[in-house]
């Protein structure tokens, strides 16, 4: 048993003994998750879903699971707030910080710990049901220690005007801290909201964020979801977003990944009823030794569903990108319209990307397409820009920015485009200053 596993088992036992009063369903969930994780351990290259990304560094880093609850300076909180806007929720090391958070009326935001005590009936049908134990080691790791996080609920017919910014802040890590982040988002029938999850750090220490967000979109609801991963360059980040869509609901997402030493981001969407639509966009920008692994799974279970995936990557230095996009169209899911595109730009000879589409189509009346491309900066385009007086480095940066811009502009996001463009600009500056 590795040191990490030993520490994990201890943390689990401590939690179990300390919270015997939690609802029985939750005790079972934790126990089941811990059981499979202890048995199977961390994934290896033999697991198909992990064949491109080696997590030895996480397994052997001897992370510990003790809570770290730092005091944040007001200045730090204010700075985060300023970037976010009026709907601002702060989660520090996985724990919701109510005192620093505020949200417009009509949105229910509850500390998951409180909800476990007071709203068990609300949580039970959802929490840990979609991102269920036994499917993935990191999900199990997270569920085995599940006790805190965030519940966001938008009531029926409610339209939330401004984006809800949730900042997941890693702070005061011991250098070995593993933070478990857990969220449940429920949009009631015909409600509408924009939710932005941003993952970032307050200081320079190494840490490991393991985040799970379950999202339920009831009939006719519409969610725009941005996940901005800008963790510290030495951090490890593993995250799953599991979405369940009811009939006529719409999910538009954007995953921007610029940070972390090693990132794995899964976004899994189940279209469980007729006429649901999902649009997933993503952009990953890597340099140095970064590993940025995006995986998607769209499960068309019922007729007349739509899905459109568009992911792009820009990789410099020795960085590695992975895009593995799965689409399943079940036998019942006639008239499905499913598309997937992944394009990559490699800025160095040592950068690398693996792209793998996987389509499984069991219905016969469907429209499906997929495409993948890997390329470099076009010599002709570089020459054109340079012939106008723009130096080679700046020309490269402009072309890369243009490449990135397309995925942002093309998306149906109603807000956030400017913010995403700015973050991309910042990262590209770094990327081209070190090339």
């Amino acid at each position, binding site marked *: 048993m590795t040191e990490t596993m030993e520490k994990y088992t201890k943390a689990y036992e401590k939690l179990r003994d300390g919270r015997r009063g939690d609802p029985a369903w939750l005790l079972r969930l934790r126990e089941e998750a811990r059981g499979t994780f202890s048995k199977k351990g961390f994934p290896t290259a033999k697991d198909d879903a992990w064949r491109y990304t080696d997590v030895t560094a996480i397994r052997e880093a001897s992370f510990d699971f003790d809570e770290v609850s730092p005091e944040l300076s007001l200045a730090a909180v204010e700075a985060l707030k300023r970037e976010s806007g009026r709907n601002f929720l702060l989660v520090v090391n996985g724990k919701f910080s109510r005192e620093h958070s505020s949200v417009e009326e009509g949105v229910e935001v509850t500390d998951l710990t409180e909800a476990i005590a007071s709203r068990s009936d609300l949580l039970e049908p959802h929490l840990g049901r979609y991102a269920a134990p036994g499917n993935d080691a990191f999900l199990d790791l997270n569920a085995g220690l599940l006790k805190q996080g965030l519940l966001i609920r938008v009531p029926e017919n409610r339209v939330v005007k401004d984006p809800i910014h949730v900042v997941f802040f890693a702070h005061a890590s011991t250098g070995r801290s593993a933070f478990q982040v857990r969220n449940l988002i429920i949009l009631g029938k015909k409600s509408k909201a924009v939710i932005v999850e941003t993952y970032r750090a307050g200081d320079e220490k190494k840490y490991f964020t393991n985040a799970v967000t379950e999202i339920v979109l009831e009939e006719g609801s519409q969610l725009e979801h941005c996940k901005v991963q800008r963790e510290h360059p030495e951090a490890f980040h593993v995250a799953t977003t599991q979405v369940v869509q009811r009939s006529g609901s719409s999910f538009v997402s954007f995953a921007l990944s610029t940070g972390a030493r090693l990132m794995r981001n899964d976004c899994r969407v189940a279209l469980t009823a007729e006429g649901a639509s999902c649009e997933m966009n993503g952009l990953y920008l890597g340099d140095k030794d970064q590993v940025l692994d995006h995986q998607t799974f769209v499960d068309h279970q019922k007729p007349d569903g739509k899905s459109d995936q568009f992911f792009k990557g820009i990789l410099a230095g020795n960085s590695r990108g992975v895009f593995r996009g799965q689409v399943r169209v079940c036998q019942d899911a006639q008239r499905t319209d499913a598309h997937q595109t992944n394009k990559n730009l490699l800025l160095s000879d040592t950068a690398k990307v693996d792209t793998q589409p996987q389509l499984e189509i069991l219905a016969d009346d469907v429209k499906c397409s997929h495409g993948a491309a890997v390329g470099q900066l076009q010599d*002709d385009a570089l*020459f054109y*820009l*340079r*012939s*106008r007086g*723009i130096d*080679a480095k700046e020309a490269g940066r402009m*072309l890369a920015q243009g490449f990135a811009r397309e995925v942002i502009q093309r998306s149906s996001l109603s807000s956030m485009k400017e913010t995403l463009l700015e973050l991309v600009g910042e990262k590209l500056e770094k990327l081209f200053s070190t090339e």
Partner: protein
Amino acid sequence: MLDIKNLHVSVEGVEILKGIDLSVKAGEVHAIMGPNGSGKSTLTRVLAGHPSYVVTQGTATYEGQDLFQMAIEDRARQGVFLAFQYPIDIPGVNNAYFLKAALNETRKAKGLEELDAMEFLEFLKEKMKLVEMDESFLSRPVNEGFSGGEKKRNEILQLAVLSPKLAILDETDSGLDIDALKIVSEGVNRLRNPKRSFVFVTHYQRMLNYITPDHVHVLMGGKIVLSGDKELAFKLEEKGYEWVKSDDRPPTTDHRL
């Protein structure tokens, strides 16, 4: 301004230019004509610094400097401009942003202050009138989705914005309908001045109906075989390039050859 001597250029090991001599003085307009495959475009691209073209012999002196020792961007900053035969699409890069970046690079090289967004827009709108370009072009990505004529107008707009000393136009007339040709030619005419030189390369004589050159050169088989004044262009139009090779042609009128 520009002195080319015995220039030999190869692409992928094949010699395209086989000893070009050409001298362009400030304020002069030179037309270089010739059949397809004679090396016209190669000449324009090698002057701008395209990396695929290898100079195997000869020199090009621009304003006293060895042009071939200058980086592509430095040539542009020092006032060399190439209007492309096939302007390149730059997806995701907004036309106005691109023009501003390019202008500010040349301004910096001249020791001038960079223009801010507002100043630039004022400046740009003036220049756009010159080529009758709609403002909607500014927010579109460079050349992407532009028609052939729009791309060529965009090249002349860049010429107007960057205000080079030496403008090299590569088949700017090709693919233009008569209206676009007029707009582009008038744009060029208005940009003519005693300090600015033009070298334009063309297959057909028709652009010369609008732009009157001081010198006309015929480029064939990688060499300038004949030079003259604008009358030469009309002769070529009438008799075709085959005539140049025949015995019937007049002696070279340009003494610099």
